[in-house]
């Protein structure tokens, strides 16, 4: 299924707020696609888009809004439909969304939109984006379970599957979600008739390995991109320790990667991501770096762009043995003639701690950044301010070192032994609740792909506990 239509389908959602000539252009394209791919596939795409938009909605609610939009498209694509058909229909739908007994999914901020009127309300509703804590990943069903459910009602199964996948991957282009669903439904179609065929499932799953792994990777990096304020700062340290390059090079590489994510994660089509990652692979795997890298890294670079990134993501990073750069001290952080000095400082401390996951690293870096920014913009002497905050900055940096040490131990010890270790390390006032906070942070956030929102919260909780203890 071509994914070019996706950008036009999202135009349905926003079409009523675009300019007049945009409207008719969108209508032609949408109606053309509807005719080409058919109502059934169109419904799947709409379900994906709305499940991503409302991960907290029930299947019923999402189905409801997707069906309404499909009905609207079908009505307005009739030859005898009036030119303002979309506009009128979209307005009706937005009125319905704001109604008391709306059958559509409810976004927490919907009341804010509904208090506006007309054009503004529609624009507000169209651009609502949900932000929730991550949902648990789907358990892999057995071939028998798939076949039982699929053969009962193939079409309902496919809608339910796209809903469950889309609401768990809501920060990535819908195109990837639709592609995954199609692969899965095709597998059920081929392997359940006439009986459950294990070799068939084996073959299909084996062939889908690369794309399912990539989906997870993309979801992870896009979640980080959307949720972590200082993601780029964290990425600089990440690439610095991975590629063993100095700040300038690491910064260029991380900017390239992060700007690609910023551009493409929330676009509905997959093409943007594919192009960006293809160009990024060239940067990551360029000859000058490749020669000095490990065999594993070189092996990663010999694969297709998507596989290179997932492969590199799994490589072990080591703290650099020697940093070929002048060390930045906290006292210099407000020097006007060096605009990126804070970033250098954060790189310096971040690159050493390779056992800390990005959500934790960036939250701590964020904390340091805020402290520094407050000083640099202080009406009084920023140097004095920095001096006063020096111990706070050191303590925050020390938290990073402590997290690194604890996470290294977390992967070596059994959980009961780890808890004992934490209890021994955490002494003084409020030791029990502080210890609890550290254990929670470690068990959830030490693994590399830890959930960004939750880990941000847990890191902030630990920072607060430690601040209160030393206050």
């Amino acid at each position, binding site marked *: 299924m071509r994914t070019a239509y996706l950008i036009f389908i999202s135009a349905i959602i926003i079409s009523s707020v675009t300019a007049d000539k945009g409207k008719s252009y969108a209508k032609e394209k949408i109606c053309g696609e509807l005719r080409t791919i058919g109502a059934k596939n169109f419904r799947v795409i709409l379900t994906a888009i709305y499940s991503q938009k409302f991960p907290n909605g029930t299947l019923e609610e999402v189905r409801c809004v997707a069906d309404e939009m499909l009905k609207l498209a079908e009505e307005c694509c009739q030859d005898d439909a009036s030119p303002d058909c979309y506009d009128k229909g979209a307005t009706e739908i937005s009125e319905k969304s704001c109604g008391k007994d709306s059958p559509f999914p409810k976004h927490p901020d919907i009341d804010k939109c509904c208090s506006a009127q007309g054009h503004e309300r529609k624009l507000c509703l169209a651009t609502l984006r949900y932000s929730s804590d991550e949902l648990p990943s789907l358990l*892999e069903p*057995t071939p028998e379970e798939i076949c039982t459910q699929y053969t009962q009602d193939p079409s309902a199964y496919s809608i339910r599957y796209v809903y469950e996948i889309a609401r768990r991957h809501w920060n990535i282009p819908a195109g990837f979600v639709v592609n995954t669903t199609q692969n899965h439904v095709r597998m059920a179609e081929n392997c359940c008739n006439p009986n459950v065929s294990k*070799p068939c499932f084996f073959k299909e*799953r084996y062939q889908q390995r690369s794309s*399912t792994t990539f989906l997870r990777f993309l979801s992870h990096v896009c979640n980080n991109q959307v949720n972590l304020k200082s993601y780029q700062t964290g990425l600089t340290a990440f690439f610095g320790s991975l590629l063993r390059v100095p700040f300038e090079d690491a910064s260029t590489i991380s900017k390239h990667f992060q700007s690609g994510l910023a551009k493409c994660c929330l676009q509905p089509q997959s093409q943007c991501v594919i192009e960006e990652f293809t160009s990024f692979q060239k940067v990551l795997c360029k000859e000058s770096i490749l020669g000095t890298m490990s065999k594993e890294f070189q092996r990663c670079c010999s694969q297709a762009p998507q596989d290179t990134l997932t492969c590199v993501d799994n490589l072990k990073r080591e703290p650099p043995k020697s940093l070929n750069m002048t060390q930045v001290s906290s006292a210099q952080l407000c020097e006007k003639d060096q605009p990126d000095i804070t970033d250098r400082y954060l790189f310096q401390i971040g690159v050493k701690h390779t056992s800390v996951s990005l959500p934790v690293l960036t939250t701590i870096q964020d904390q340091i950044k805020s402290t520094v920014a407050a000083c640099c913009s202080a009406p009084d002497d920023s140097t004095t301010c920095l001096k006063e905050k020096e111990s706070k900055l050191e303590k925050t940096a020390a938290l990073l070192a402590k997290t690194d040490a604890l996470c290294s131990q977390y*992967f070596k010890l059994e959980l009961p032994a780890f808890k004992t270790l934490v209890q021994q390390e955490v002494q003084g006032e409020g030791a029990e609740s502080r210890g609890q906070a550290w254990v929670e942070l470690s*068990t959830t956030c030490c693994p590399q*792909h830890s959930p960004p929102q939750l880990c941000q919260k847990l890191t902030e909780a630990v920072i607060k506990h430690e601040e209160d203890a030393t206050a």
Partner: protein
Amino acid sequence: MSGGVYGGDEVGALVFDIGSYSVRAGYAGEDCPKADFPTVIGVTLDREDGTTPMETDGEKGKQSGTTYYIDTNQLRVPRENMEVMSPLKNGMSTWHYNIPAFFLCKTAVLSAFANGRSTGLVLDSGATHTTAIPVHDGYVLQQGIVKSPLAGDFMSMQCRELFQELSVEIVPPYMIASKDSVREGAPASWKKKEKLPQVTRSWHNYMCNTVIQDFQASVLQVSDSPYDEQVAAQMPTVHYELPNGFNCDFGAERLKIPEGLFDPSNAKGLSGNTMLGVGHVVTTSVGMCDIDIRPGLYGSVIVTGGNTLIQGFTDRLNRELSQKTPPSMRLKLIASNTTVERRFSAWIGGSILASLGTFQQMWISKQEYDEGGKQCVDRKCP
């Protein structure tokens, strides 16, 4: 790969799963291996004085020099100067056998797929190691692999110690001409065969091990809860007779020996307490993986390997994991009831993979290997 090079559509593949204890081999597309034989080679070398060693009937007319013996039947015939060695430890090269093309795949991935899953925690307990390998979306998560040396060979060692304590000699069948029946627990009474060739120590040990392994498979049982002396004393006994006629009823020992797999703290012969029991091997492995995939791993714990066939192994593992995981965690052990599938799941996975139509594009030809070296293996083989 063009079909022309390899004879068109009718290209078959041989599938080998080479373990420390046994090799499973057969044809792609079949549902179980045709051959299952020990991973040892018997090597005879000429005597130092230039005379040739004793030949058996099958080898008349063979030239003197190095002779290799594989397979149980060949190996069990006592021969002079035949040393037993493991090809795994001593290196092996496939190219000596003029193989036109090959493909390697990690056994954990194959076991998972053979059990209908691309995600799961593969627990493989064989002869030398008990290993937990997390597999997610068909790829092994290297950082989560946990290995423990407590496996089949460890239990064999414990069995040997038991017999030493009982002052019972392990005599393999090849030495025994005749035996008398004796009372339970009484010393054995047997006659040694005359005119036995001068066998090597390595071969003699190998034959003793087969006696121990038979005892292991027949008598041992894993307790369904942590070992308790009083409970073990109530255990129904199993009668076992060694090849030399010594026979005894075994009760508490049946549970005590395999307990070391799950709770190494009290096991004899272990230096320090740093070994992980089977339950901990699993939970440690899962704990090294991202938090959001852990339910998927606990929901598919795939149990494979010959050592897991000990009676009671999976029940005890289930109990241990239920206690170590949160109540909300859905725990599912996938353990085939048949010996065939449990020991052969990796082979079966390989058989399915090698029979897929797309497989022919995957394998590495001799030419590719000659040109690309080991790197093409790393690149092409998951």
